[in-house]
C-alpha cells in the first residue's frame, strides 16, 4: 500500500517522467552507439576480409595466369620441340629409306654371284643399340637393370670452367647414352631371282632368313609365308623399285603392361616372359618382333630384264629411329618405359603399327599361314567379326576404317586374353588418336594434339614419312608416319612446380591473412566488447545517476508537497497555529506563504468567532443565571408576602382587615404572574424554552380548558361554550402544557375583558393545521392595535384597568409560544362587537424541535 502510494504518487510519476525523458534517450543513444560500433566493426572486418580475399584472389589469379602462361609456354615449347623431333625423325627415316633405294639400284649393277653380293653387303651395315641385361627384381614387382646403365656424367663439360661471359645458364650434358652399340648389317638377305621367280643367288646375314634358294613366286616359300612380291616384281620396268611393307611374325602377349609374375597370374598364364613379346622395361627379356622390308629392282643385261635383285632390310634399323627417342629431358633412352607414355613409335602407310616399345603392338603375320594376325579390335567390331564367321582379313576388308573412333569404345578383352593385340589404326576404334594421326598425315603433313588417355594428359604428334618409292608413292603420306607420345605434365613440370609453390605461397599467405583477419576480428571484437562494456557501464552509471537524481528531485519536490500535505492535515485536524515552512522563493514557497496567509486569516477568524461564541455563551450563562437568580430572589420575598397575606385572610376576623390582606395577596399574586411570564419570555428569547411534545386528545383538552375557566365565566355571568368541527383528528402532537398556556391566556383574556355575552372556544381544521378560535363578545380591538397587543408591556390604554390586572406580557408570551409550537397567533376584531383570537398549529406537531 505504502509502496503503491509511493509508485502512484507524484514521486513515482516524476521518476517515471525522468526515466522516460532521460533514461530512454540514454538507452537509445547507447543502443545506437553500440549498433554503430558493431556495424563499423563488422564493416571493417568484412572489408578487411574482402580486401584480403581479393588480394589473395588477385595473387591466385596472377599465379594461375602465370602458371597457365608458363604451362602454355612450356607446353608450346615442348610441343614445338616434339613436333620438330617427330618431323626430323620422319625425314631421317625417309632419307634412310631413300638410301636403300640407292642400295637396290646399286645392287642391280652388281654381278649376281655370291662373292659380289657378299662384298656388297659387307659394307652395308649400321649401328643399332641394345640395352644391357635386365632381370626381375627380388620382390618380382618390376624389371630392373642387371648392371649400371646410363650416362657417364663425368663426361659432361664442367660448368665451373665456363668463361664468365658464358657462365650464365651454362648447360652441359654428357654424351647421349642410347645403349650398347652394335654394328648390324642393313640387310638380312640379298638375292637374285630369275624371271621365273626362282632365287638364283642368295646371301643372308644373321639367322632370320632361310639360306636355301626357293621359288619365291610361290608365297609359301617367302619369308614367313607372308610375302606376295613376285607379281609386283614382274610388273617392274627397268629402274623401277619395289618396296614391300614391313613383314614379320607377330609376337603376342597376354599381358599388357608390365609382364610380371603377378600380372601373369592375373592373366591366368604361366610366367614365361621369354615366350611373350618384348616390351622394353615391361618385359626386357621378351621375344622381339623380327621383320623385314624388301627392296627389289630388275637386273638388266643388254637392256633386257634377266632377273631381279632383292634386298631385305632388317626392320630393326627402321625401329632404331624411334626406339631410343624420349620426348623428355633425357632425350634418349636405351630402353623404353612405355607405361609412362613418353616414347616414339611408327606406322606404315596403311596406319598399321610397325614400331613400338611394346612389340606385341606391332602388327605381324602368322608364320604358319602367312596370314596377317587379326589386329586388336574394339569390342563391338570384335563381336561383329565373331558373328560374321569370316577370316579376319576378309571381314576387315569389308569394314569402314576409322569408324567412329572414340575413347568411349572398349577394347575387345577376348583378344587380350588371346594375346593378339597388334595395332592397326584403321580398326582400333577405341583409340581416337588414330583418326587424329591419319588426319594430320594424310596430306604428308605433321602436327600434334593432346588427348587424355590411359589416365594421362598426353601430347601426341604425327609426321608423315616423306618416302614415296613404289607403292608408297600412292599417297602423300608416303611410307607412313612417325608418332611421339608425351606425358604433357612432364613438359610443364617446372611450371606446375612453380604453380604448386605459388599455390603453397598463396595458401600460406591465405592462412596468414586468415590469421591476421581473425586477429583483426578478434581485435575488433575485443574492442567492441570493451566499447560495449564501457558503454554499458557508463550507460548504467548514467541511468543510475539519472534515477538517483530523479528520486532526489522527486523527493525534494514531494517532500515539500508531502510536508505541505502534512501541514494542511495538521491544520485541518485543528492545529490552527501550524504554519508551513516557506524558505524557498519558488512557486512552492509562494504556495506555502499563500497557505500561511490563509491560515493566519482562518486562525484569526476562528479566534474571533471562538471569542464571540465564548462571549455569547458567557452572556447567555449570565442571562440564565440572572433569570434563575431573579426568579429566586423575587420568589423569596413573595413567599412571605403571599404566605402571610393568605394566613392573615384566614386568621383575621375583621372583614376590613381581611380585605386588606386579600389586596396584599392579590398584588403579590400579580407580581408572581409577572415574574412567571417574564421568566417564560426570557427563556424563549434565550432559546432555553424546552418543549415536551406528546400526543394530545383534542376533545379532552377542550373539556379541561373549558372546565378550568367555567367558574371564572360564571362569576361574570358569561356563557362559555365550545365547538368542535367534525373533521378533527382525534390526536394532536404538540407540547400540551404550552398549548394549554396559550389557550388559557386567550380564554382568561376573553373572560376578563368581556362584560356581557359569551366566550366561545372553537376548534376546526384548516388543511393540515388545526385552528383554535377564542371568540368573545367584548369591546373589540381597533385594527390599528391588532399588532400592538402582541408587544410586550403594551396594552390598549382604554382596556387597562386595575380590574383587569394583566401583566402586559400575556399575548406576547402566547404568540412566542405559538411560534415555538410551529403555529401562529392572530386576531380579528370589531370594536363593539368582540374579538376572535386564532391559534393555528400543525396537526403533526412542531416541524423542528426548537433548541
Amino acid at each position, binding site marked *: 500500500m505504502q509502496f503503491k502510494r509511493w509508485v502512484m504518487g507524484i514521486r513515482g510519476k516524476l521518476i517515471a517522467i525522468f526515466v522516460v525523458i532521460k533514461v530512454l534517450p540514454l538507452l537509445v543513444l547507447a543502443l545506437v552507439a553500440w549498433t554503430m560500433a558493431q556495424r563499423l566493426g563488422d564493416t571493417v572486418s568484412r572489408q578487411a576480409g574482402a580486401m584480403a580475399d581479393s588480394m589473395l584472389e588477385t595473387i591466385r589469379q596472377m599465379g594461375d595466369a602465370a602458371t597457365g602462361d608458363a604451362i602454355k609456354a612450356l607446353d608450346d615449347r615442348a610441343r614445338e620441340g616434339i613436333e620438330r623431333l617427330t618431323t626430323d625423325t620422319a625425314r631421317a627415316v625417309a632419307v634412310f629409306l631413300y638410301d636403300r633405294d640407292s642400295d637396290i639400284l646399286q645392287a642391280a649393277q652388281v654381278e649376281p654371284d655370291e662373292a659380289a653380293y657378299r662384298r656388297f653387303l659387307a659394307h652395308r651395315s649400321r649401328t643399332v643399340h641394345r640395352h644391357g641385361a635386365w632381370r626381375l627384381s627380388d620382390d618380382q614387382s618390376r624389371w630392373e637393370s642387371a648392371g649400371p646403365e646410363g650416362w657417364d656424367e663425368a663426361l659432361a663439360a664442367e660448368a665451373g670452367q665456363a668463361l664468365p661471359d658464358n657462365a650464365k645458364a651454362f648447360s652441359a650434358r654428357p654424351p647421349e647414352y642410347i645403349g650398347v652399340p652394335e654394328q648390324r648389317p642393313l640387310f638380312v638377305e640379298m638375292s637374285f631371282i630369275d624371271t621365273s621367280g626362282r632365287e638364283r643367288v642368295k646371301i643372308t646375314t644373321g639367322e632370320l632368313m632361310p639360306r636355301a634358294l626357293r621359288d619365291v613366286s610361290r608365297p609359301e616359300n617367302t619369308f614367313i609365308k607372308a610375302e606376295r612380291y613376285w607379281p609386283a616384281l614382274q610388273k617392274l620396268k627397268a629402274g623401277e623399285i619395289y618396296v614391300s611393307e614391313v613383314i614379320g611374325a607377330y609376337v603376342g602377349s597376354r599381358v599388357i603392361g608390365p609382364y610380371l609374375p603377378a600380372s601373369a597370374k592375373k592373366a591366368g598364364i604361366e610366367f614365361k616372359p621369354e615366350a611373350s613379346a618384348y616390351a622394353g622395361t615391361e618385359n626386357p627379356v621378351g621375344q622381339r618382333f623380327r621383320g623385314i622390308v624388301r627392296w627389289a629392282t630388275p637386273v638388266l643385261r643388254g637392256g633386257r630384264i634377266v632377273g631381279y635383285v632383292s634386298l631385305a632390310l632388317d626392320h630393326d634399323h627402321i625401329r632404331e629411329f624411334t626406339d631410343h627417342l624420349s620426348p623428355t629431358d633425357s632425350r634418349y633412352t636405351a630402353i623404353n618405359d612405355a607405361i609412362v607414355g613418353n616414347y616414339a613409335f611408327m606406322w606404315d602407310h596403311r596406319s598399321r603399327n610397325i614400331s613400338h616399345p611394346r612389340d606385341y603392338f606391332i602388327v605381324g603375320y602368322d608364320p604358319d599361314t602367312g596370314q596377317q594376325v587379326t589386329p586388336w579390335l574394339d569390342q563391338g567390331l570384335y563381336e561383329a567379326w565373331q558373328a560374321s564367321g569370316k577370316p579376319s582379313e576378309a571381314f576387315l576388308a569389308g569394314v569402314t576404317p576409322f569408324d567412329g573412333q572414340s575413347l568411349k569404345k572398349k577394347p575387345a578383352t577376348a583378344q587380350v586374353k588371346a594375346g593378339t593385340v597388334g595395332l592397326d589404326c584403321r580398326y582400333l576404334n577405341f583409340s581416337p588418336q588414330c583418326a587424329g594421326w591419319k588426319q594430320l598425315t594424310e596430306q604428308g603433313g605433321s602436327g600434334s594434339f593432346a588427348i587424355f588417355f590411359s589416365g594421362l594428359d598426353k601430347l601426341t604428334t604425327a609426321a608423315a614419312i616423306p618416302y614415296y618409292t613404289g607403292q608408297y608413292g600412292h599417297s602423300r603420306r608416303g611410307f607412313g608416319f612417325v608418332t611421339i607420345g608425351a606425358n604433357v605434365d612432364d613438359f610443364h613440370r617446372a611450371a606446375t612446380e612453380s604453380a604448386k609453390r605459388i599455390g603453397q605461397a598463396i595458401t600460406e599467405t591465405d592462412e596468414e591473412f586468415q590469421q591476421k583477419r581473425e586477429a583483426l576480428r578478434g581485435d575488433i571484437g575485443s574492442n567492441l566488447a570493451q566499447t560495449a562494456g564501457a558503454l554499458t557501464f557508463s550507460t548504467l552509471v548514467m541511468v543510475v545517476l539519472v534515477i538517483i537524481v530523479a528520486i532526489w528531485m522527486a523527493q525534494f519536490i514531494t517532500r515539500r508537497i508531502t510536508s505541505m500535505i502534512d501541514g494542511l492535515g495538521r491544520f485541518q485536524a485543528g492545529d490552527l497555529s501550524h504554519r508551513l515552512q516557506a524558505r524557498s522563493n519558488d512557486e512552492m514557497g509562494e504556495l506555502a506563504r499563500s497557505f500561511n496567509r490563509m491560515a493566519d486569516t482562518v486562525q484569526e477568524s476562528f479566534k474571533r468567532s471562538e471569542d464571540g461564541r465564548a462571549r455569547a455563551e458567557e452572556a447567555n450563562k449570565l442571562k440564565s443565571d440572572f433569570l*434563575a437568580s431573579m426568579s429566586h*430572589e423575587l420568589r*423569596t420575598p413573595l413567599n412571605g*408576602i*403571599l404566605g402571610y397575606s393568605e*394566613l392573615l385572610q384566614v386568621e383575621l376576623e375583621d372583614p376590613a382587615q381581611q380585605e386588606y390582606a386579600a389586596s396584599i395577596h392579590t398584588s403579590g399574586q400579580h407580581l408572581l404572574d409577572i415574574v412567571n411570564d417574564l421568566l417564560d419570555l426570557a427563556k424563549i428569547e434565550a432559546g432555553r424554552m424546552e418543549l415536551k411534545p406528546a400526543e394530545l386528545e383534542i376533545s379532552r383538552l377542550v373539556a379541561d380548558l373549558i372546565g378550568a375557566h367555567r367558574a371564572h365565566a360564571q362569576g361574570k355571568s358569561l356563557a362559555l361554550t365550545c365547538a368542535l368541527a367534525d373533521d378533527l383528528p382525534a390526536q394532536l402532537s404538540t407540547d400540551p402544557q404550552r398549548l394549554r398556556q396559550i389557550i388559557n391566556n386567550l380564554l382568561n383574556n376573553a373572560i376578563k375583558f368581556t362584560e356581557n355575552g359569551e366566550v366561545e372556544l372553537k376548534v376546526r381544521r384548516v388543511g393540515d393545521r388545526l385552528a383554535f378560535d377564542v371568540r368573545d363578545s367584548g369591546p373589540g380591538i381597533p385594527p390599528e392595535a391588532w399588532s400592538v397587543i402582541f408587544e410586550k408591556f403594551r396594552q390598549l390604554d382604554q382596556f387597562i384597568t386595575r380590574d383587569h390586572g394583566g401583566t402586559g406580557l400575556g399575548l406576547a408570551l402566547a404568540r412566542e409560544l405559538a411560534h415555538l409550537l410551529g403555529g401562529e397567533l392572530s386576531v380579528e376584531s370589531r370594536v363593539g362587537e368582540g374579538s376572535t383570537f386564532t391559534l393555528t398549529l400543525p396537526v403533526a406537531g412542531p416541524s423542528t424541535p426548537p433548541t
Partner: protein
Amino acid sequence: MSDTSPPASRRVLVVDDNAINRRLAMAFVKRLGFATEEVEDGAAALDKLAASPFDVVFLDISMPGMSGEEVLARLRADPRFGGLHVIAYTAHALPEEKQRLIDAGFDDLLIKPISLKSVEIALADFMQA
C-alpha cells in the same frame, strides 16, 4: 409510611436561613396540625435531626454554609434517616432547577411562594385520613 398517627404527633423540621420564610412555613405546618421546630442552617439541621426524630424536613436550598443539597446528601448517606421525608422548600422554580432537585433525591418540592393549599398537598401523606 402508615398514616395512623395524629398530625400533632408528626414532627416537621423547617430549615431556612430566612427567618420570615422559616416562620411562615412553621405557621402553615402548625395550622395543619403538625408539630414543628426550626433551625437556620444545614449543620444545625443535621444536629437537630440526629438529636430527635422528625417525620418531615422542609429544607431550604440556598443557605449560607451547607446547602440544602449537601444536607440531603448527608441524610441520604446516613442509615439513621432512612425513613425521613425530605421536601425541598425553595424559591428555585425554573424547570431545570426543579429537575435538578428531584434528581438530587428530594421526596417532594415545595416551591416558594407557598400557600396553605400547597403545604397541605405536600404534607397530605402525613395527615389523618
